């Protein structure tokens, strides 16, 4: 009788885990860029020069990358590096950086904006 109960418990456990697994496969939630490991580390101006070429842009598109450069402007939650990369941050950075600072930002490479000749980065955060 005891064994029967243990078997029932185990089967119930397996069933619950299977249901959770299937649910998570169908509704995976939002991608968490902050916890993903960066695939590339590159300077802002090198990134802009690379992404201006459509074929090379695909290499970085939708990837999590770390970009380093000098702050040329801060606008709300956006930081512009070397007038080459516009990064939209998750949190307001104005208390932590100012124009002229050399910083590193981790974010998702969204693509190349050819209206302004800049790369867009989103879901970004400052790296110490």
């Amino acid at each position, binding site marked *: 009788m005891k064994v029967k109960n243990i078997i029932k418990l185990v089967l119930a456990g397996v069933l619950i885990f299977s249901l959770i697994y299937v649910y998570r496969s169908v509704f995976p939630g939002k991608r968490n860029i902050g916890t993903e490991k960066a695939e590339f580390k590159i300077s802002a101006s090198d990134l802009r020069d690379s992404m201006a070429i459509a074929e090379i842009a695909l290499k970085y598109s939708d990837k999590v990358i770390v970009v380093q450069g000098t702050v040329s402007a801060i606008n709300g939650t956006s930081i*512009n590096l070397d007038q080459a990369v*516009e990064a939209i941050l998750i949190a307001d950075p104005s208390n932590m950086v100012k124009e002229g600072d050399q910083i590193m930002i981790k974010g998702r490479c969204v693509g190349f*904006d050819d209206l302004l000749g800049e790369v*867009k980065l989103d879901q970004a955060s400052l790296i110490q």
Partner: protein
Amino acid sequence: MIFRQLPIVVIFLLTGLLSAQERYLDKSGVVVFEASEELFEPVKAKNESVTVILDPQEHTVASLALIRGFVFENSLMQEHFNENYIESDRFPKAIFKGEILDFDITHLNESTREYTIRGTLEVRGNIYEISPVVEIQKVGDVISIQGGFSVKPGYFDIKIPKIVENKIAKTVQVSLDFKLAKQ
């Protein structure tokens, strides 16, 4: 001898400065699109990295939204959107170009006024004419534009597979929220 020509030189310099093109720019404009069907999972995505440029002299607006910039709550839906529906590796951007009808920047102030922007939207290599109605106001050196329009996937040759037809609304609602700062 040079002093005789100085006034003319000064006038040329001044007109050069005065005719500098003034424009308004937003690099983190917000565009949301929604095509949800009641009873099914919401089909909704938000792009917070849209570039919008307004030229007050020409009354024109130009805007670029990177397709990858549209973030869905469900990352699987986002993958399908990019890979199957839009093919964003082939068509990475949505571009809008238009003219704001009856626009005069000197008439703008803190109260919102309604305007129509007549223009074209290009997605997936297909161009479609749209005329979004927007509310525009100006507070200090910032012009804010809010409004929306609706389109159908068919306008841009976006094919919805039969198997999900019922889960996606026939008409996609698009909303805009831009804050353009003077450059």
